């Protein structure tokens, strides 16, 4: 089984980091991945946001792929707006999208 690189980028101005991290850990554990391997990094300055291409907190990437496809999100220190599969606004990504992105990466791609 392939172990993807999992990143969680967060900013202290949003209270959603713990919830996002919990979702990510649970989904990784369900798939037999090591939650301890999550590379969680704080983004605290505009310069860091530009360097990380950070479009809001929390951002979860698996092998560099964002768990929810980006549209025209501006780079910067903000709280990210996600949409759940039922259309609601959410401060964290949908659990199913997290799982699907992890699963795709474990297979070696998204196709």
């Amino acid at each position, binding site marked *: 089984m392939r172990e993807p690189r999992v990143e969680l980028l967060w900013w202290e*101005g*949003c*209270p959603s980091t713990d919830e996002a991290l919990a979702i990510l850990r649970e989904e990784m554990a369900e798939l037999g991945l090591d939650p301890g391997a999550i590379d969680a990094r704080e983004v605290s300055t*505009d310069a860091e946001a530009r360097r990380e291409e950070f479009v809001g907190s929390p951002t979860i990437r698996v092998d560099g792929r964002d768990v929810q496809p980006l549209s025209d999100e501006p780079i910067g220190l*903000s*709280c*990210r*707006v996600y949409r759940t599969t039922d259309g*609601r606004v*959410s401060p964290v990504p949908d659990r199913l999208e997290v799982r699907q992105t992890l699963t795709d990466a474990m297979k070696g791609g998204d196709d």
Partner: protein
Amino acid sequence: MAQASATKVGDLAPPLELPDTSGTVHALPTRDEAPATVVVWTCNHCPYALGWHDRIVQVARDYEDRGVRFLAVNSNDQERYPRDSLEAMRERVESEDWPFPYLHDESQEAARAWAAQVTPHLYVLDSELRIRYEGAPDPDHMDPGQDAVWLREALDAVLVGTAPARAATDPVGCSIKWK
């Protein structure tokens, strides 16, 4: 983690006088002009503010005939957060048919005076403009069924001249974007 508020339940509300998205200046009602007033700090880009917005709007519509005033305030730095610019605020008000004015706190002085911390951050004032409730609209931004129950409870109490049983809750949302 939200910081302790400088304003607190029981205090008289600080002054509030700001332009809305069309330039009209709005202020708090004068004493005894309205039986209750709700002031909510909000913004355009925060998932918590967006998640709770429809519920707050519905409360405004439901309590309109009882004379309750609503004022929404956006204090975020529009230079670093263009989605909170005056133009973006105007577009949103026009496209969503807001039932209350959306005030632009460009200097951020109002947010500092009120010690608003996050979006959304609600204050319910009585007819004397004394703060009777401060905090979140309800316990869960993701559950529309909560129906802004904490805000409704606070308004119901204030409208009959009693103190809300739940006078304060922790406001939950995105930090105000200071300059």
